């Protein structure tokens, strides 16, 4: 909402308050100021000049030399290229050392050898258009036709370019403040100045509206009030300067007197007005009704709209002429030969207007206001003001009488005034009298312990609303600051602590945390090679997405991680090690909301990163999270991974995740030109399987015995099988078994490999004898033999 300070000062005295002071005080009382602009503030040292003489330039056929009276002792000489000037014209003159919009600096100089002491200005050079001054021309010098021009007069004063426009951000609960009068009320209460709101009245009328027009409202639920007045013998012409200036200051383009009056009243009262040609009201009757199935209407913007029965229309006896509260029809608009018009000032049901505008895809200035639910009581003063302006502008003859179909609810809202409760709620100490003073300033009536808000304050319903009114005019800045009383124990939950551990463990191993979008494109499931019948293609789908790329909630984090790896790879980052604790959204049969599961996803590529470095990180993560009994089981069927370099991760029997090298086709789909490694783990399952903290183990008192074993087995045999055999064979005294060499080549037979282990054995209660250690190794070899591994000879 843009406010003209000149317009505001009609209703409240704001003289002597600077724009900055005004903005700050209004912001602090609840009307947020976004900024302000003083018209023509960039124009300096431009005055009114009177052309005394215009002669051709001796050395040019398009330049002329002007002698201009600018109120100085003698006329000044200015050379111009404009063709539309002649002696006797009044013009804006940018003197030597003057400034124009856009930072243009004018200095004296010579044009083709002739001295020029400034510049004659066009409309656009002053930052204006023909909407501001309809009598002027677009290209050429702005020939002033204003009354009472004086030579040397400052141009701001001469053409009324001296208003300040303040821009407000008005919240959706205060549609009354989308108007000059609404802001005047707030300003009067803020600065504690009297409010001067005259009641508009029409002086002279003839004829009677009831002879020409009938109004029937068949949907009173959607139209609480419909008011109409008429004007005949209208003369469509440009509005006077003062009206154009004010519209311009509020950001509205002047059109003609009738349209300008409706806009002027809308800005002044916040009440959208509609003017239409009485000729086109078939049957002389306006019917406010729900649209019929299949009805159509061509709106003012020239588009034919299909209407539905939940939409309210303004119709005559034959057809709809306007979509109520949204837009008028093309057919009934004001034309050059219009003689008699109807002013409609109505109040419609807010939600209904909102749905209609949304469904028709045309939000207008009017619908934006109506949908916030306007005050039915404003209909009358608004239409009276419109007629008063018609009279004032001589734009037509106002017809006597008014039609007012009023179905509005006039029940007073009565809100308890509980001073003690308000003081306790806000944390202040005001007397009831002080509160009443504030409320009275806001035009509330006080009836004992009850507040009756004015009709235009539909936002005041509850005693908390009254508390806010008290607080904002007492001053939010004056409310003390206190600490919350009572004690409370703030602590992380088990899940939060677990996630913090995950973060520290992964960061300590060199992984950077990333953050990716939760929504993806369904096409990404193709990019990670999910089969068409994969369960993971069943996603939560956004019905109104911004685009396909963000249209479904991910069921897997693989595409997100691959995309980040790809971006880093293609941004020429040599290597990357990343992780994210992100959410996947799994639809649940028979439930409205999906299962939102936290997934830890790890991804890496580049030097130093391979399958086993990633596996090492995962193992360290599992160990540090105190997860016992995990295992990795080769998997060649996951479509996103390399079939020979992929494993399922188990904790006991529960599958908690996957690890592997990205399938070459997947890497190619993501334009990653190197091997990429990815693992993911379900955080909830890990937490469920994390062992509680264990107690302390005493340090060993007896020495350990060590034995190294070099084994030969089939190349295909996984080493995990050998390790399990050793554990099984040695039994309880095995403290540690570690793989230290794997060899394939000339020294071993084709299809075989040599695997070397170091065993550490220890008993808690005695020193193991060599015989015991050897016996244990024998048991291990026996178990190894069963899985096809023998001691290397």
């Amino acid at each position: 909402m843009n406010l003209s300070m000149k317009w505001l000062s009609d209703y409240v005295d704001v003289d002597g308050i600077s724009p900055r002071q005004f903005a700050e005080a209004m912001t602090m009382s609840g009307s947020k100021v976004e900024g302000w602009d003083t018209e023509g503030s960039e124009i300096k040292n431009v005055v009114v000049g009177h052309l005394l003489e215009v002669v051709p330039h001796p050395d040019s056929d398009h330049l002329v030399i002007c002698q201009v009276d600018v109120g100085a002792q003698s006329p000044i000489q200015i050379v111009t290229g404009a063709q539309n000037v002649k002696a006797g014209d009044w013009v804006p003159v940018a003197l030597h050392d003057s400034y124009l919009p856009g930072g243009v600096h004018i200095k004296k100089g010579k044009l083709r050898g002739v001295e020029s002491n400034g510049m004659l200005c066009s409309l656009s050079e002053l930052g204006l258009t023909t909407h501001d001054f309809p009598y002027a021309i677009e290209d050429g010098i702005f020939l002033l036709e204003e009354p009472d021009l004086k030579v040397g007069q400052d141009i701001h004063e001469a053409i009324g370019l001296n208003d300040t426009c303040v821009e407000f951000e008005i919240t959706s609960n205060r549609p009354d403040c989308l108007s000059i009068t609404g802001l005047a009320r707030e300003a009067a209460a803020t600065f504690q100045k009297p409010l001067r709101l005259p009641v508009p009245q029409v002086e002279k009328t003839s004829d009677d509206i009831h002879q020409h027009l009938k109004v029937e409202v068949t949907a009173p639920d959607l139209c609480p009030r419909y008011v109409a007045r008429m004007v005949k013998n209208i003369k469509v012409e440009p509005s006077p300067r003062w009206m154009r200036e004010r519209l311009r200051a509020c950001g509205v383009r002047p059109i003609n007197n009738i349209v300008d009056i409706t806009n002027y009243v809308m800005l002044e009262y916040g009440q959208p007005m509609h003017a239409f040609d009485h000729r086109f009201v078939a049957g002389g009757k306006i019917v406010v009704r729900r649209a019929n199935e299949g009805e159509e209407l061509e709106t003012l913007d020239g588009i034919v709209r299909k209407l539905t029965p939940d939409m309210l229309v303004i119709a005559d006896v034959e057809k709809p002429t306007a979509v109520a509260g949204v837009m008028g029809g093309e057919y009934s608009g004001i034309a050059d030969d219009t003689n008699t018009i109807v002013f409609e000032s109505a109040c419609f049901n807010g939600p209904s207007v909102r749905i209609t505008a949304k469904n028709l895809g045309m939000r207008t200035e009017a619908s934006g206001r109506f949908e916030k639910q306007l005050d039915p009581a404003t209909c009358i003063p608004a239409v009276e003001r419109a007629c008063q302006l018609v009279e004032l502008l001589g734009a037509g003859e106002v017809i006597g009488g008014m039609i007012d179909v009023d179905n509005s609810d006039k029940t007073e809202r009565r809100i308890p005034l509980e001073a003690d409760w308000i003081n306790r709620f806000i944390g202040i100490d005001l007397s009831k009298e002080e509160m009443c003073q504030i409320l009275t300033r806001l035009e509330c009536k006080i009836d004992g312990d009850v507040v009756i808000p004015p009709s235009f304050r539909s936002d005041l319903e509850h005693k908390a609303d009254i508390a806010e009114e008290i607080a904002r005019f007492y001053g939010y800045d004056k409310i003390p600051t206190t600490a919350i009383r009572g004690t409370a124990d703030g602590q992380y939950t088990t899940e939060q602590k677990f996630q913090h551990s995950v973060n520290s463990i992964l960061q300590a191993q060199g992984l950077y945390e990333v953050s990716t979008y939760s929504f993806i494109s369904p096409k990404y499931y193709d990019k990670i090679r999910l089969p068409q019948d994969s369960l993971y293609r069943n996603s939560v789908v956004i019905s109104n997405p911004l685009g396909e790329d963000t249209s479904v909630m991910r069921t897997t984090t693989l595409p997100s991680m691959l995309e980040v790896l790809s971006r880093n790879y293609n941004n020429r980052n040599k290597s990357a090690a990343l992780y994210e604790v992100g959410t996947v959204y799994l639809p649940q049969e028979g439930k409205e909301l999906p299962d939102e599961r936290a997934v830890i996803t790890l991804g890496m590529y580049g030097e130093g990163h391979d399958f086993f470095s990633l596996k090492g990180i995962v193992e360290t993560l599992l160990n540090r999270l105190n997860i016992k009994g995990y295992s990795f089981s080769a998997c060649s069927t996951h479509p996103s991974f390399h079939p020979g370099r992929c494993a399922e991760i188990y904790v006991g029997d529960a599958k908690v995740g996957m690890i592997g090298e990205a399938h070459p086709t997947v890497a190619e789909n993501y334009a990653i030109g190197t091997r990429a490694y990815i693992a993911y783990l379900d955080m909830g399952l890990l937490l469920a399987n994390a062992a509680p903290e264990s107690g302390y183990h005493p340090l060993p008192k007896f020495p350990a015995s060590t034995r190294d074993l070099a084994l030969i087995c089939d190349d295909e045999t996984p080493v995990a099988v050998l390790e399990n055999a050793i554990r099984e064979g040695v039994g309880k005294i095995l403290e540690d078994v570690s793989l230290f060499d794997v060899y394939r080549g000339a020294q071993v037979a084709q299809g075989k490999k040599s695997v070397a282990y170091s065993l550490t054995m220890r008993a808690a209660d005695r020193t193991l004898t060599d015989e015991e250690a050897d016996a244990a190794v024998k048991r291990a070899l026996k178990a190894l033999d069963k899985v096809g591994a023998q001691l290397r000879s």
Partner: protein
Amino acid sequence: MLNALQNIKEQAAQALAQVSDPKALEELRVKYLGKKGELTGILKQMGKLSAEERPKVGAFANEVRASIEALIEEKAAALKAALQEQKLKAERLDVTMPGKAAPMGKPHPLSKVLDEVGEIFLGMGFSIVEGPEVELDYYNFEALNIPKNHPARDTQDTFYITENVLLRTQTSPVQVRTMEKQKPPIRVIAPGRVYRSDAVDATHSPLFHQIEGLVVDKGVTMADLKGTLEMFTKRLYGEDSVVRFRPHHFPFTEPSAEMDVQCFSCHGEGCRLCKGEGWIELLGCGMVHPKVLSNCGIDPEEYSGFAFGIGLERLVMRRYNIDDLRLFYENDLRFLDQF
């Protein structure tokens, strides 16, 4: 014999003075103090002495032994020190050569600041709660006093799944879920992802993070709201931070406010950073609307509360002077490595 002892003492002192390596020192020790050494040789002749002479010679012999031992020890220490010095000199490193770094990752800047915020509130007795991102219309809007077709819905362009299910546009639904589950006193923050149908540019993202806060108890006032949020701001941005509260409107709080922090750059004068206003909007807040309390089964006559919502991205961008929100979700390592 006394003379002989005197001679040994002097010779030994002389010889020791010239020793320059541990081996020679050991040889001298053997020569003078060894079983077959000179001093022992003399002492072996003690038997030949008279009873009067014996204690005198004995005492002197001990004195000579002690003095030679002391000299040897002294010399040994000196030699060891010299040797060590030589070794240290040889082992000198060019300490300006680069260190060998162990790889260490970093938290995402959003997590880093969120953790800090979490700890500030934890210190004030708040717990941290979470709620679903795919949410029911009821929790996101209806229960928060925003019925269908309320104009406030326009300011939060919503992604819908079905008519009743949506991507939450704010973390405020967690307020409702918390109040349904937990009776007062309540003191929680609820950080998380929220979604709005805004096209991506430098300051907009269809996905961003909010931190919701909720306090409900007997006798909670708007002054408590001001005190809590002012303290939070001072903890996050420094004790000299200045804040202001100005009236605003949210359907689920009444009175409502927005909190601005005085521009760090111009201290309220108005500059480019704060777009000339002197203040930077930081968060929205207010007293929980009595209707919302009632919707959650809490008696507004008995309890009151306040709530607030902070935009995490905005907080982080302000903190590190980041001017493009897209960087957070691009995850380029050259960006991530800066925090």
